Structures are given as structure tokens and as C-alpha cells.
């Protein structure tokens, strides 16, 4: 197992903090904006409390790799090089944002940064990841793609088709199920009669592994192994990251269906707290360092917000023409 360097540990910390700060900010705007003249179009979908899954997984990638993210993967998007500015432009539905204001919040893609264009239909992007993986093989590129989906999405037929298909063709895909225990108001027990989504790996002929989704270094190590296997031609792996959705489904949802007890027990496992403890244990950082980073990311997000909110709204030009690519 490859150990993370100090630099990497600290970088991961920064990503955790930046994601948290950015999403706290989004939450704050949603809660406080004027509904008649909203800055954020629609709701926010946050990864609060489960950032380590997205970040740890994406951190295992190299430049030539890709991701097919899901709706709580801002951490991964930041690692792929999308900036807080770009992500806020997307939330504000601005002309210069990744989807030019044509789509909003988490429904974005960025081809240059190797990020597929996410759609709402749960699990829909998983077979699309296969296509990228197939093309990598076709083009003889030593690369792979991560396909993220939730516990809820795992019940979609298309996810099954995609995992079986990837196994048959030994595609360089790593399937990351972020099992955060809930699909909107529906708990895991009403979604599946098994304990571990990872158990499905065996049913496709791929390794199925479980890791603690709140420990960023554990997610990283687990995914890195799968990434290496994929790049070596060893085919796909299904990685299940056990975590918990600590926000409502969206910023509008108070999640009253989750018991206080469940929240309290997971609060203790907060991925940032965990990582801070680890950094201290390793002697890589102290409280002062944390404070500095917290302040830094906060001002980065604030600056990005100020900047982004003043960007142009989309214009109706090219709406019809841009449906099709020019030939």
C-alpha cells in the first residue's frame, strides 16, 4: 500500500475544507436569498459529511483519467480542476458557467477537465463511463474512469447493465458507490435486502470492496488499488464507501425522517474531524494550520461568489443553433 506524503495529506485536507466551505456557502445562499430574485437557481445538493468519499476517490486519478460524477461530488470536481468560480457560475446559472446557464447546480460536465455531463436520472451516467473506458482501450490509452453513484441509484437497472458490461469487456472503470444510507427519505433497509452494495461485485465477476467513506486516506488507498488494476487491464472494481448524508436531500429538505441519534452518531465520524486528527497524529499539522486553511478557503469562496454573481446572465442567442454541433 502506497503511503500518502505529507504534501498529499495536506492537499487532501485543503480539498475537504474547500468543498465544505463551498457547500456551506451554497447552503447559506439558498437559505437567505430572495426567492423572487434568487442568485442560486433551484436547490443545492450538498455532500456535507461525505466529502471524503468523493475526494479520496478522485485523488487516486491522474490527469488522463476521467470521472462520471454523481450529484454529491463537488470534491471530485474540484480535484479535476473545476474552480469554485466555475461551480458557482453553474449554481448561479450564468452564461460563462460550464453549461452556459442552460443547466444548473450539479448538472454539469467539462470535457476539457475529463468530467462527464451529469444528468438527473440516477445511475444514467454509469454506462456512459463504460464508453469512455472502452474508448481508452480502443485508443490504447493507459487511463481509467471513476463512475460514482449512490445507494439509491444502485437500484436502477442501468447500473446493473453497466457493471455486467464492464466486467465482460474488462473495461478500465472503477465503480464507486457512495452509500450514504438514504435516497431522499428512503432508508437503506427499504432499498435493498443486503448489507453491502459491494457484494454485487462478485455477481458480475469483479472485486467488490468496502471502505470507510469518511476516511479520506482509506478511500484513496482503496480506489488507488482499483485504479491500478484497471489500468493494468485487470478490469473493473466495485468500491463501496460507507458514509452518511448529513444534509437534507437538497437545501430545501430538513430531513426530519432521519433520527437525531443517527445524525449524532455520524457527527462523531465527520471526515474533516477525522482527517484533522490524523494530521495531528502524523505531526503534519496543528490547530493553527487548520485555522489558516479554514480562513483561506473561506475567502476563496467568498471572492468566487462576489466574482461569479456579477457575471453575465445567459442570452437567448444561439439557443436553437447550439442544440446540434456544426458539422
Amino acid at each position, binding site marked *: 500500500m502506497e503511503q500518502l506524503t505529507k504534501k498529499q495529506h495536506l492537499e487532501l485536507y485543503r480539498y475537504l475544507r474547500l468543498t465544505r466551505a463551498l457547500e456551506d456557502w451554497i447552503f447559506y445562499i439558498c437559505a437567505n436569498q430572495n426567492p423572487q430574485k434568487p442568485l442560486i*437557481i*433551484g436547490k443545492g445538493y450538498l455532500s456535507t459529511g461525505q466529502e471524503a468519499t468523493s475526494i479520496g476517490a478522485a485523488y487516486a486519478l491522474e490527469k488522463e483519467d476521467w470521472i462520471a460524477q454523481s450529484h454529491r461530488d463537488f470534491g471530485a470536481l474540484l480535484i479535476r480542476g473545476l474552480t469554485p468560480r466555475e461551480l458557482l457560475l453553474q449554481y448561479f*446559472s*450564468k452564461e460563462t458557467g460550464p453549461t452556459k*446557464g*442552460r*443547466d*444548473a447546480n450539479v*448538472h454539469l460536465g467539462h470535457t476539457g477537465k475529463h468530467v462527464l455531463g451529469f*444528468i*438527473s*436520472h*440516477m445511475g*444514467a451516467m454509469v454506462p456512459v463511463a463504460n464508453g469512455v473506458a472502452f474508448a481508452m482501450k480502443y485508443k490504447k490509452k493507459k487511463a481509467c474512469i471513476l463512475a460514482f453513484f449512490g445507494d*439509491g*441509484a444502485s*437500484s*436502477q*437497472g*442501468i447500473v446493473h447493465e453497466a457493471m455486467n458490461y464492464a466486467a465482460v469487456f474488462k473495461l478500465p472503470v472503477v465503480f464507486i458507490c457512495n452509500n450514504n444510507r438514504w*435516497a*431522499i*427519505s*428512503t432508508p437503506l433497509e*427499504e*432499498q*435493498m435486502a443486503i448489507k453491502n452494495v459491494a457484494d454485487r461485485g462478485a455477481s458480475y465477476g469483479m472485486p467488490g470492496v468496502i471502505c470507510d467513506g469518511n476516511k479520506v486516506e482509506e478511500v484513496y488507498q482503496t480506489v488507488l488499488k482499483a485504479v491500478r488494476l484497471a489500468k493494468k487491464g485487470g478490469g473493473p472494481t466495485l468500491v463501496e464507501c460507507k458514509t452518511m448524508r448529513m444534509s437534507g436531500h437538497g437545501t430545501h429538505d430538513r430531513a426530519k*425522517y432521519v433520527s437525531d441519534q443517527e445524525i449524532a452518531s455520524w457527527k462523531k465520524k465527520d471526515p474533516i474531524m477525522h482527517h484533522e486528527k490524523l494530521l495531528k497524529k502524523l505531526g503534519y499539522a496543528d490547530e493553527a494550520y487548520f485555522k489558516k486553511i479554514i480562513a483561506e478557503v473561506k475567502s476563496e469562496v467568498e471572492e468566487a461568489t462576489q466574482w461569479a454573481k456579477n457575471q453575465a*446572465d*445567459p*442570452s*437567448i442567442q444561439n*439557443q*436553437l443553433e*447550439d*442544440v446540434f454541433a456544426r458539422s
Partner: protein
Amino acid sequence: MSRSLYYADAIREALRQCMQEDGDVYIFGEDVALYGGVFGVTKDLFHEFGPKRVRNTPLSEGAILGEAIGAAVYGLRPVPEIQFSDFLTTAMSPLVDIMATYHYRVGTKLPITIRAPSGGALRIGHFHSKCLEAWFVHTPGLKVVVPSTAYDAKGLLVSSIRDNNPVLFLEQKKLYREIKDEVPEEIYDIPLGQAIIRTEGSHITLVTYGSPTYLALKAAALLQKEGIELEVIDLRTIYPFDKETLKKSFSKTNRVIILHEAVKIAGFGAELAAFFAEECFEYMAAPIMRLGALHTPIPTNPVLEDHYLPSLQDILDAARGLMKY
């Protein structure tokens, strides 16, 4: 006794009364139980009828509609909810291949009502705003209902649930808590396939259904000041649709505007236009005008979505244009 109810609450009342009336009626879908559905439409029904008759399912639209078919074959009257009608794309095969063809092929009735919120103007983007009704009108074996008032929503839902056929009940999510009107307390039905004239007029027939009805009425009020009278017809059911009422109105006005929120090209409005051009030619005094959405995916930004959707101005322009004939 009647009182003013929100569109969403009228739907819930229909569900409750149908479940009281018939023990074979039951509800299921994603988050419909304790949570009451993402729009709160099924709220409290779980408490009243318990987990057997109000049930959460996994995130599996195909399995949901599959269940509905099997349960109906066995004699139940399932009322599944699809969280957004957009997600029907993941369950087309059970819907159009099995459900729509079952009675014709096997001879067994399938009394299923699929509730699916539909429509846009809420700035929630392409995947939560689509209007897919034309696909289903083009699918022999399905009935398609699109209510625009709380009163209609209740009465049409009761009819749909009592109907012995698969009905796609496309709730207008924009209207859930925007529209309130008088709804009788007792259970009642409104026959499927009957249009209603929302406002009478002698110059132009405006045919619409669902939430654009309100836009049409606004236009009618404005145009009246100019001396142009719109007769606004709300179809309520789009398959089967009420040819009599359309023909009668058109025979008087000789001009027609067809309005819907769905994409214009190959939308249900095309069927209406074709109907007028084929079966009412003798009354035609002007081009048949269609107003629908642009041929693009549905954008999120309000500036873009407003541009995408047919507007009040579009109706005014079309009406004024027609009066030149």
C-alpha cells in the same frame, strides 16, 4: 359542501376517497409513504391507510410499473407515483410495451393510474420539467389526463382510478400550490374525454390543457379589450380528446390557436392542428397556429426558460395575426 383547495390537496383528497371507497386501490412509489412524496401530495395517507396501502419503493421505475401491471392482472387497482414524469424514460418498456397492449392482446383489463408530475416554468431544468404527453397519445392503449384546476384534478383522478384502463395522470407540478379553487367535499367524477370551455368567445378558438390554460385566460382578458374574443378550451383529457367541443367552437370562430408547454415540433398540438385541417376544413378561415416550446432541451436560467416556453406575447401576436384573415 365545497371549499377552496389547492390543486395538490384536491389530488390527495381524491386518493383518500378512492382508497376509502375501494380496498383494492393502493399507492406506491419513491418517498410516497411517511415523507408524503417530494411534492407532499400523498402526505398523511400513510398514517391513515398504513404501510400496506401506501408504500415506499426502491429507486426503480421499471420495477414500479412492472408491479402495477402484475397487481392489476391479479385484480388490484394500483396507483403508482413516478416522482417526475421525466423519469418515465427509465420505464418505457413496462408502460408502452406491456401496459398499453395488455387488454388488446390478452383480454384482461389493467386498471392502473400512473400519477406523474409534469411540466416546467419552475427553473428546475431539463430533467425535471419535460412534457412528454405526445409520446403517450401516440401509444394505443393509454389514456392521458392533464388537469388544470383543483376541481378537475379531483374529479378526473377519481375517474381515472375507477377506469378499467391504464391512465397516465400528468399532474401539473407548477400548479400544486399555485392554484386554489372550489372543490366539493364528497367524491365525484368528471368523465374522461370531455373538454371544458373556460371562457366563451366568437373570434378565435384557443385550445390548450394543463397549466398554460391560465396563460390563455390572461391573453383572453387582454385581447377582449382590443375587441378580440378568444374562446379558451381546456381539453383536460388529451387521449381521448373531445373532438365535438373543438369542432363546435371552430365552426363558430373559424380560427384557432393551439397552445401547449411541450416542444412544438411533433407535440400533441400537431395532432390537434392535423385534426382541424383534416376534419374541419370547411370552417378554416386562417392558418392553424401552434404555440409550443422551442426545439431545444429545457434550460434552467429564467431568461432562457422564458424564451423557451410559449409566452403571453406569443398568444397576443398569434391572435392579432389571425384577425387579419
